[in-house]
Every structure is written in C-alpha cells, then in structure tokens.
C-alpha cells in the first residue's frame, strides 16, 4: 500500500512523460513532432508539480464559505498545498505561449524551405 499513494503514482507518470518528451525531442526529425514532444514534456512537468503539492486525503484549497471562522486550524489540516497549483497555472500558460510561438516558427521554417526536417536548417554552422 505504501506505493499506492496517488502522489507517488502521479509523480511517476510525470517523470515518465518527461522522459518520453525528451526522447521525442531528441529522436524525432519532424519539427511538428518535436513541438508535440515539447507539449508532452510540459504536461509531464505540470503533473510533477501538482503531485508534489498533493497531500493524501485532503481537499482542494478552497475554504468552504460557510465556515470561515473555523478556518484557522481546520484549513491547515484539510487542504492540499495551494502553491504548486498556482505555479502550475503559470506554467501551463507559459507552455501555451511557447507552443504557440514554436508553431509560428514551424510555419516560418516550412515557408522558408518547404520542409519540416530539422536537419535541413543548418545554414548557420561552424
């Protein structure tokens, strides 16, 4: 049962996705595929972050509006860590921005050489 902690499982999934992401980035020649790998890498990192904030058996970090007065002590023992969630929000948005930019680059690159093979774009070297 020790291993069957949701946090641990998610962490593992996150790691595996990150490695798959790296694998794709390093092995795929097609630029779109590389970008896809990036989104997978990003997702993996996001899962990682959220799972690090997870505490077994606790609720989302939203205080029930009906019991504000009791919040003090109970809240501390009833919610998961809000900080990683806040960070992930930022990370997702950043990831989206980067993906959009990468795709715009992909279009430009394709327009330039009519190919998406990354090893064709080596005008600058040595």
């Amino acid at each position, binding site marked *: 049962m020790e291993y069957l902690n949701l946090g641990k499982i998610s962490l593992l999934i996150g790691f595996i996705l990150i490695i798959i992401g790296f694998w794709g980035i390093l092995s795929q020649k097609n630029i779109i595929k590389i970008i896809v790998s990036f989104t997978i890498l990003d997702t993996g990192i996001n899962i990682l972050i959220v799972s690090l904030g997870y505490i077994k058996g606790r609720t989302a970090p939203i205080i029930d509006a009906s019991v504000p007065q009791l919040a003090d002590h109970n809240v501390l023992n009833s919610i998961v860590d809000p900080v990683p969630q806040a960070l992930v929000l930022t990370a997702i948005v950043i990831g989206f921005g980067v993906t959009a930019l990468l795709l715009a680059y992909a279009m430009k690159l394709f327009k330039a050489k009519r190919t998406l093979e990354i090893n064709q*774009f080596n005008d600058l070297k040595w």
Partner: protein
Amino acid sequence: MVSPIYIVAAALGVGFAIGVLGKLGKNFSGILTLLTLGFMTYVSSEWLYAFYFGDQVSTYVFTAGYKPPISINLLMGPQEAFMSTLINVIGLLGGIYLFFNFGRKGRNAFVVYLVFIMSLNVVIMTRDLFNLFVFLEISSIATAGLILIEKGNRAVGAGFKYIIATSIISSILLIGTIFAYFYTGSLNIDDLVKSDLTTTTGGLIAVFLILIAAILEMKPFPANGWGLDVYEGSHQGFSAVVSAATATASYFMLYKLLDIAGNSWDHYIAVIGAVTFIGANLLGVKQKFARRLLAYSSIGQLGLLMLILGLRTYLGDNLNYVVFGILLTNLLAKTGFFWLVGIVKAKTLKEWAIIRRKPFFLFLMGTFVFALIGFPPFPSFFAKWTFVMDLAANGGFVWIAVILTGSFLEAIYYFRWFGYAVKADDNYNFSFNVRWHKITPIILLTALLYIIGYLTAQHTELGRMINFIPLFFVLILFALDFLPVFIKNTIAIIGMGIYFYFIYPSLSDLKLLFEVIFMIGGILTLIAGYAYKGKRSGFYPVAILMYAGLTGLIEANTTLQFFFGWELMTAGSYFLIIRGKRSMPHALSYMLFSVAGAYAILAGISIANIGQLTTSLSIFNNIQYFPQWAYGLLLFGFLTKTASVGIHIWLPGAHGEAESDVSPMVSAILLKAGVYGVILALIGMSKSQYDLSSLTYILGWVGALTVLFGNISAVFQEDAKRLLAYSSIGQLGYIVFAFAIMTQLGWLTGFTYVINHFMYKAVLFLTIGAVVLRVGTHNMYEMGGLIKRMPLAFVAVLIGITSLSGVPPLSGFTGKWLFYNAVIEKGWYFQGVIVFLSGGVAFLYLFRLIQTIFLGQLKDNHRNVKEISIWFLIPIYTLLAGLMVFSARPQWVLQPLGDMIANYMPQNSIRWDGAYAYTAIGHWTGSGVMMTIGSVFLIVFLILKLSTRKAHKIKQFDIVYSGERPDRPDTTHVAYNMYAGFYKAVWPLTVPLAERFWNWMTELVHEAAGFTRRIYSGNGQAYMLHIVLYIIVLFFITIGSSI
C-alpha cells in the same frame, strides 16, 4: 528615489497601452518606447548614483504588501543597480539603433523590445526563484521574437534553435525549482540559501538542476551552438543587446543562484568558465566571418565571467570590481562592435577593409578592439590586473595561465581583423551608408568607454597615480588631426619638449638615461616628419601615444603604472607599425608577441606581488615567492620586446615595412623599452636573496644566440630595411647578453650598447628610410652608386656602419672592448666567442648595406634622384655629432654610468684615469686612439691628395674592363645574392627554425579549432543533444557520486 517596481509598471503599462495608442502611428509607438526606456534608465541610474555617491543602503521592494517568503520581493542593491543600469542603457541605445527596424515590423516589435528589457531588469532584481523562471521565460520568448526583425532563413533557423534550447533549459529549471520548493517550503532565494537543501538527495538534485539551468543560460562550451546562432543569425542591432544585456542578466542569475549550493560549486563553475573561455576563443581563431566571430567572442566573454565567478573565493571583496570592469568593457565594446557590424555589412573579415573609407569608423573599431583585449585606459585593463593579482596572491597560478591563454587567443583574431580593416586590399564595389540613429548610439558607447575608463582609473586606489597628461595630449592631437603635417609636427615636438623640460629635473640615473633616449630620440625622429606633405592622418596621435607609454614606463613608481605605460606603448607602436604599406601581417605578429609578452609580464608581476606590502616597483627587488618563475616570466615578457631569438620573428617585418621615420622610432627607441624592463628585472635579481644565476646564465645564452642568428640572417637580406631590422635583433642580443653578465663591466657594456644602438640605428634607419623615400624601393639590388647623388646620406651611413661594426676609433669599439673584458672577467667564454664571431659577421651585412646602395653602379632610373630631405639630415647629423662626441670622450658618459652601476653591481672592476680606462686585464683610451688614428689618417690623406692633385674625376661606369664595357651599368653592379659563397657555408644557421616553429604552432591552433568546431553542425536537434549530454556529464561529475 523612484521605486524599481516602476520600471516594471512603466514598461508594462506603456507596452499594453501601445496596443491601442499605436494606432497613432509607428513612430509614436517608437518614441513612447524610447521615452519609457529612458525612464527605466533614469530610475536605475538614480539608484546607482545613490549607491556609489550617496550612502544608500540595499533596499527590498515587497510586492503585494507581504514580507518574503510570503510574497515575491525584489532587491535593489549596488550590484543590482549597476547591472540594471547597464541593461537599461544598452536597451535605450539599442532602441535608438533599431528604431526603424522595429518600425518596419510594426508597433508590436517596440512592445516586445520594451518588455524584453523590462524582463531582464526583473531577472536581475527578483529574489524569488519561480519569479525568476517566469521573467527568464519572458526574456527568452521576447528574444525569439526579436530575432526575426532580421529577414531571411538564417534568422528563422537561429530563432527556432534558440527557443527550443531555452525551453529545455527552463524545463530543467522548473523541475529544480519545484523540488527545491518541495524540500524547503519556500521559493525565496534567500531562504533557499539559508536552508540545508543540499543535505538530502532530492535537494541535492534540485540544486543541481537549478544551477545547471543557470549555467546553460551562460552558453557554456560546447553546449552553446544555439547561442552562437542567435548572435550570428539575428539582426546585429539585436545581437548586441543579447550579447550585452542578456549576458549581464544571465551572469547575475548564476551569481544569485550559486549561493544556494554554498561554495561547493565554485570550482565547477570556474572549470566550465575556463573551458568556455578558451574553447570559444579557440574557435574564433579559425573564423572568417565577422558576425560569427563576434558570436564566439561573446561566448568567450561569458566564459570569462563564469571563470571570475567561480574564482570568487580568490577575489574576495574585489569580485564586484573585477566583474564590473570586465562586464562594463565587454558590454559597451561588444555592443558597439555588433552595431558596427550592422552598419558596415561586410561579411568576411577581409571585406572589412571597406571600413577605412570612413576613418572615424576605423577609430571606433580600434577603440572596441583595444577595449576588448583589455588595453588601458579601458576598465577591463584594471579589472584584469586586479583579477590576476588576486589570483596569484592566493596561489591560483593555473587560473592565471588559463585566463591569459584565452585572452591571447582572443587577441589573435581581434587584431587580425583589425589588421584587415586597416590594411587589407580594398577593391570591393560595395560600400556602407550611415544613418544618424545607427551611429549615435555607437558614439555614445565609445565616449562612455573612455569616460568610464578614466573614472575607473581615478577611483581605484591603484590607478589614481597614473599620469594622464600625455594621454590628454594624444587626445588633443586626435582633435587636431585635420591640420597639415607641418603644424601638427611642430605641436608634437613642442609638446614633447615642454614635457621633457618639466620632467627632466625629477629624474636621475637610469631613468634619466632612458628618458633622454625616449624623449630626445623622439623629438629628433619627429623632425624628420617635416619631410612629409599633406595631413598624414592619424600619425601624430599614435606616435605620441607610444611616447606617452614610454615616458609612462620611466615615470612609473608602481607596478600598475609600469604595466599601464607598457600597454600604452604597445598600442601606440602597433598603430605606428601598421601604417606601413605592406605591414599588415607583421603588425599582427608584432601585436601577438607583444600581447603574449605583456601577459607574461602581468603574470610575473602578479607572482612578484605575492606577500608584498607595497605595490611599488621596488617589489622587483624583493620577490619572496617563486622568484625563478617571477623573474623568468618578467624577462620573457621584456624579451619579446627586445626580439630575442625564437621570439624575434615579428621584428624584421614590423621594422622593415614601417614608414621611413617610423622605423627609427620603433627600432632605435622603442626596443629600449624592453631593455629598460630587462634592466629593472635584473636589478631586482641582483638584490634578491635567492641565487638566480641559472636564470642569468640562460639569459646570457639567449642573448648570445640572438646576436649570432640576428647577424647571420641580416647578411642574406635583399631588403635594406629588413637588413637593418635583423641587425637590430643582433644588437639587442648584445645588450641582453651584456646585462645578463651581471657585473659592473657587463652592465657598462650594456649601457654603452644601449646608447650606441640608439644613435647609430637611428642614423641608419633614418638615412636608409630617407633614401627609400627617394628611390621608391627597399630592395638593395635595385639601388646602387647613390654616393654621387646623395653624398651626405653616404657619409651618415659610413659613420653609422663604422660605429656599428666596432672598428676603432668610433664608439662601437668602446662596446667591443668592454665586452671582451666583461666576458673574460665573467668567464662566459663560449657565449663570448659566439658574440665576437657574430661581430665579424656583422661586417658582412654592413658592407653590403653601403656597397649595394651607395657604391658600385648607379641605376639608370636614379640618375636624377636628389639628396635626401633636409628634414632627415638634421636629425641624422645631430645624432652623428652625438656619436662622435661619445666616441671621442667616452669617459664623459661611461664614468658616471659606471658609478651608477656600482649601486647595483658593487664590484669595482673598471678604473678611469682621465681618458684612460683600466680593467684587471686590459687598458684602452678612447680619445687617445681617436687622436692617433685621426692624425695618421689626416697625414696620409693629405699626402695622397697632394700627389694625385692632377687626377680628374671620371664617370662611375668608366671602369677597367680591358677597355671594353660589355655590360649595362645595372648588371655590373654586385648586389643581388651578394654573399652566395658564404651562404653555401653557413646556410644551416639561417634555417628559420623559429618561424617554422611558430607557423607550426599557428597551424596546430587552426587545425584544433577546425576540428573542434565541427560539433556545431547547425542541426538544432544536435544542439539539444549537446545540452542534455552536458547536463548528464555534469551530473555525474558533480553530484553523481554523492547520491
């Protein structure tokens, strides 16, 4: 004090507003952007001012009204203020430079640029790790966007590589950040520093990931292909900003984060920095394209910054001083350089010859080159100095070697490039246009460089004593460059005269002797300048620069002042030398040997400095640690200037190809600077408590071999000036040998040679130079029989070579006689024999000089040449008068010199009795011999003249040929390959082994660079592989074993 948060607020507010206000026009957006950048600059510089001139203390800015780590905070301290001011200044100037480039892309480009600069400010100031990540992402994305203001496929490819690389890096940073948070419960960097994060495995890995990301942002070699491409591929206006501003931010990020690991990462950072610094500069050597060269150089500078950071324990409190100096110079000069590249638009380095169509640009380029290499008076000079001194003080000798090696590699390509700009053939049909908005920022940068350099010198304890008066004189001459040569020459001569007049009373002994050589020699050689017509653009500032350096050497009381003077002198002489028509490669090799020599001197001083309580030059007399190394390095450095055998290959070309009045300056005068250094080192050695005789023994052999090889090579020259140049090598060998003897007699010999060589080499170079001006060739076999056309020149050369050859009664013999006595007294017989044998060899080239130029048969096309210019004759005959006085009354000079030497070399081995000199083994009287010989000569001459009074003069070609004249006069002249027979006998001694060796070294460096740079295949995916491999390798090196 305006809170730094307004930097962010203003940038974002304006950025968002431009979305709608931009409708009012592109230029409106642009001006709004510039105003905002100006505001940002104002805010940061206000803080900077308050920190350095007020008593401002570091201030935290809290966001959201909560103290950290509850919410994000920014820190504004002296360093932050400095860095962000730099970034904002560069940002503002870059905005001006790129104004129309942005404009073409629409208002969005301005917004992106504004946000970019803002994000770098936040990267500097923020104390929150995740916040750092966010703003780092902003800067990467903005960079990726701005790369595309340059058109073409290259920029697109570069941008793509850049963004995938930075994405990987920030992913790594993010993973590290979240684990750091997980283990410490805080994202505040100060908290992380305080935490015991590195005690757990997870924490250790987290720290690793954070730091490796910060390191990768610094583009470490070899995982930096993407960075190179950005510098090369994007618009140069923007590359400049990336190279300067982003680099600053990345450095500071690493600086902030490094504390998380305590000191445990310092040595890794240092090694990474060293590898990057040397690797990047090595590859730069092979580079032919201007843009990519700058890219390598930028990477190299990042490596240097990492190196400095990694060595911070050596530097202690001086870290920031060093970093500021390097950063400031690097930033301003590199930025200017990138912008210059953007304007000039020449692709290959050779095409940069077009820059000299606009001389002002050449001046800008020269400023940047010299600033980047760390010449005075730029801040990097002082920074490098302090760096090396501190390293040595703490035993970091290997690091000194690394830094100097890297800097040397950098010097190679920069000076080659600059050489192309000054001298390469300019036959290109494209030119470049300058628009005000592009040149204004560059001029501002250049002005800043000089001003900050001056201020740095004034505000450091060390530099405050440097005498800037000569440098201001140089500036004045720069400003007056439009005047005709006559006026400028007068100003220069009067200036030097006045300076000498005021400096004269404060000098004595050694200093006086050399100052007289430098200043009086300088004035005399300058007189020859009247012979030139027109403006002679750029000559006077650089000539005076050299003399400023020389007099700086003399006036130096501290090691820093000495080195300052040394570098100025090197710079000035380099410019003088490169003025020659074909002197491009020679000026380069001169500069490289000079730089290497200067670095050796620097290293030597740094070792000498260990454990000293003073910075005075007297530390040479009292070197406490590693004296062999210290003196060895110092001597090596000075010997590069005196062109000792093996490191002499720069001299023949440099002196031979220089202008007619420059050759005597760089030969008769400049070489003495090296001698002065050698003397200083030897004085130190004589006072040292250690036994350093092995070092002087080696020095003696070096001197002796230099004499031999210098003289033998001179014999087989066809080029008159090269012949004299090789002769100088030999003569300097005598001097070095004589001083190495380390006795009173030896030194007296040395000084005699110093004085003699100054006079006769000046005479010979001036005369031959003037002849060359008349006949238009250096090749002796293209001259001949000129005695009839220019008898005064002939007499000058005759006296010059008689003196040089050491034939009594002229002063050359004084040296020879002292030499014999010194050598036998010392017991250095074999070295002595080599030296004396070379004296005989000298005879060969001296005769060749006079025979092939003045005697024999006149060339048809020289039938009407005139006597050499009066402006040359004046200094020549003044010097000849000096020479004759020195010959007739050597005791006038030698006696006081001997007394002076007695201070250092206490043996009393020479005794003067009026004009009679006695040593333990010999005796001689200069004036007596002169009188005897003179009277015999006169009597014989009169008798002969009387008995042949009826003889009438005949034409030169009227020679005994059994009554026939089968040849043309030209072909009857014995000149070409004159010593063929001798050559057959001694050719093994003329094999240019040194040249081959250096060529081989050059080849080796190029091959190494050519091989290494293949890793930059241009494939973005390969670059990503490099990055992850780099991470992996570093992981196993750093913490792999400890988890």
